[in-house]
């Protein structure tokens, strides 16, 4: 055991603990616990990324998309049932629209199957394209009136009123399903493609969630989402948030244990072999792409669960709150700063970066107010009205700067992955 690293890690953790303590003292313990809960949800997401990037070298640039799916699922499954909608005609109309969708899928599938009847490609391809176009327009025009009626009469279809853990679980599964399709297409290609595709998928998920008002209320947002533990109204802020924190903490502990076991086991060894030297493991006859797909899906499941936990805690589902580029790279900073491939480092990075991220807002505002106050006083300088919101963009700049600096000067992060020798 290398004691030198131990001391450094220990020191870093102590520093973090002290800064959290300071946060609690200055901002109140309710606020401090809130930050911790959010940090713990981000930690789950970051663990998802650390296995994708740290274990397998997969570049996921669309983290926020998977997080949004998790949040959406938490909302849809746990929000109370909208009786008004389900007892109205629109419910069956919507059912019919979905039947049309199913029908369209069957027809398209049938056209694809013409291949088996050895219909020549020159006929099949145009036929497929025409079928796709017609089926698509048919389905879209089937949904349009129903969804409009739902929005105008009932707001949206409401939730399913299920227990919170179901929402979280389904969030993970949904995220994993999307990951399966993306990974299936992109993992055989160079890693840049995965980055572009995941970036795109995040934008699309957001566009869908934002514009499907019948499903998500769009910009109107959905709240309050039920909690898995007694809410603040029942037991007070501190207790409720502490209870919530214990739920996420247990979740992290379980994930942590499972990942640790997997990492040490043959599966983790193989993953790292693939990451560090693709060619030789391919030569060793391991199905590299299959393994990578597994890791990619697993990581996205964690992101979905983390996203669900985050949305439930905030009590609100707001599709506009998901900023694909910025939040995605907040997670990236957590992982590369903490040490990719090192779960403990990731955990540390998640809490550390999140605390800084949160604290930078009041600190920046304080500095700004001081600057504009004295600027006004001494030079009669009038700060522009959106000065504060502009200056907050400094956070985006800092994330970018940290990413480039860490890549250059500490590519292994603060907690480097302790590579066991394997040959």
């Amino acid at each position, binding site marked *: 055991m290398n004691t030198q690293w131990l001391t450094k890690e220990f020191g870093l953790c102590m520093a973090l603990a002290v800064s959290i303590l300071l946060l609690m003292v200055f901002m109140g313990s309710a606020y401090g616990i809130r930050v911790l809960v959010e940090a713990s949800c981000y930690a789950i997401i970051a663990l998802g990324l650390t296995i994708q990037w740290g274990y397998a*070298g997969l*570049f996921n*640039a669309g983290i926020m998309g998977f997080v949004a799916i998790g949040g959406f699922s938490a909302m849809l499954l746990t929000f109370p049932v909208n009786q008004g909608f389900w007892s109205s005609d629109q419910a069956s109309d919507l059912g019919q629209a979905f039947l049309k969708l199913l029908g369209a899928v069957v027809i398209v599938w049938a056209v694809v199957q013409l291949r088996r009847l050895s219909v020549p490609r020159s006929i099949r391809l145009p036929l497929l394209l025409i079928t796709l*176009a017609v089926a*698509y*327009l048919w389905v879209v*025009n089937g949904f*349009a009136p129903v969804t409009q009626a739902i929005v105008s009469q009932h707001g949206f279809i409401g939730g399913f009123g299920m227990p919170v853990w179901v929402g979280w679980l389904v969030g993970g599964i949904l995220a994993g399903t999307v990951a399966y399709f993306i990974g299936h*297409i*992109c993992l055989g*290609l*160079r*890693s*840049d*493609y995965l*980055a*572009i*595709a995941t*970036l*795109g*998928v995040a*934008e*699309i998920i957001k*566009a*869908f969630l*934002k*514009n499907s008002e019948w499903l998500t209320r769009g910009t109107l947002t959905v709240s309050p989402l039920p909690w898995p533990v007694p809410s603040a109204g029942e037991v007070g802020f501190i207790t409720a948030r502490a209870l919530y924190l214990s739920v996420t903490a247990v979740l992290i502990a379980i994930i942590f244990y499972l990942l640790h076991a997997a990492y040490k086991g043959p599966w983790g060894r193989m993953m790292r072999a693939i990451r560090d030297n693709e060619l030789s493991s391919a030569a060793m006859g391991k199905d590299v792409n299959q393994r990578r797909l597994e890791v990619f899906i697993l990581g996205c499941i964690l992101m979905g669960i983390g996203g669900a936990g985050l949305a439930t805690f905030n009590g609100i589902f707001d599709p506009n709150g998901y900023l694909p*580029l*910025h939040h995605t*790279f907040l997670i*990236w900073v957590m992982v*590369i700063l903490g040490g990719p491939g090192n779960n403990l480092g990731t955990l540390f990075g998640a809490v550390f970066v999140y605390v800084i991220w949160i604290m930078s807002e009041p600190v920046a505002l304080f500095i700004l107010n001081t600057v504009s106050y004295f600027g006004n006083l001494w030079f009669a300088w009038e700060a*522009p009205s*959106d000065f504060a*919101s*502009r*200056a907050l*963009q*400094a*956070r*985006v*700049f*800092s*994330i*970018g*700067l*940290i*990413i*480039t600096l860490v*890549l*250059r000067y500490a*590519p292994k992060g603060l907690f480097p992955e302790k590579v066991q020798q394997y040959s």
Partner: protein
Amino acid sequence: MNEFVFFINNVLISGVVIGSIYALGAVGITLIFSILRFAHFAHADLMTLGAFFAFFLTALFPAIGPALGLPTAFVMLPLAMGLTALTAVYLDKAFYKPLRAQGVKPIVLVMASLGVTLMLQGLIRMFMGTSSRNLYIDDRKGIHRIDVPFELANRPIVITDPQILLILFLVVAVIALHLFLTRSKLGKAMRAMSDNPDLARVSGINTQKVVTVTWIIAGSLAAAAGTLLSLDVSLKPDLSFMLLLPIFAAAIVGGVGHPYGALAGGFVIGFAETLSVFNWAVLLRPFRDQLWFDLPANLAFVPTEYKITVPFFILLAILVWRPTGLFKGKVL
């Protein structure tokens, strides 16, 4: 006939315009990829940055354009291109070159370029806020209405000054790029380095110079595209969000590392977008009585708010069926 004019305005002209923008961006992406072998994610931000340079210069000398009879921002374009090219060269020096020297995997460079993206976005918003601006300050956008010589058409074909300038610019830029790549020593060296970087070193080609020239070309084309687009629409800091996916899709559709492919890819994506958000019901309306079904009011394939999905699905389709792109580029 009005319906047809509507089609020309909304599909043909729009497609050519947005396709040209994408093409200019995609050519830069493809050149950077073929020389430096990584997907440069900050490219759309270079486009935005270039437009902001043009905006500053326009604000500084608003009277120049009217004196010359051209939009001021267009007169300032060469300067904006130069500044952006310089920025690109220095970004490379500061952030990518040290990583290359360490011999990192290409994906680390991709990540660094995302870091640069965030920095540029943060800076632009910090200094310019998030509101949208007009690149015409002391002058006004020239709009040309061309009447169609048909009895039934009373609507004109509409094309604006910036659109005409954009198309002219693209033609000139493509010819210049072609001549550069096929006739000049440096251009040939660039193709050589794209073909086989190790052999380029072995042959004594000054690879650093080639890298610099690549950034200069990519940066100036990006600035031109960003400026001309902002001139035609408006200048917004989140321009880059709208551009990032389409220009990558265009580069990949065209075959990565293939400048002419990127050009074609830009138009493929541009037309795919305009065709899919076009309301086909407009064209069918004259035949409404002959149709066996009720014509819905809106028969677009993709609602405008989902336009971003179009390049994405084209990208996925290309990755599935032809990862090398239409023109047999390299697989990224």
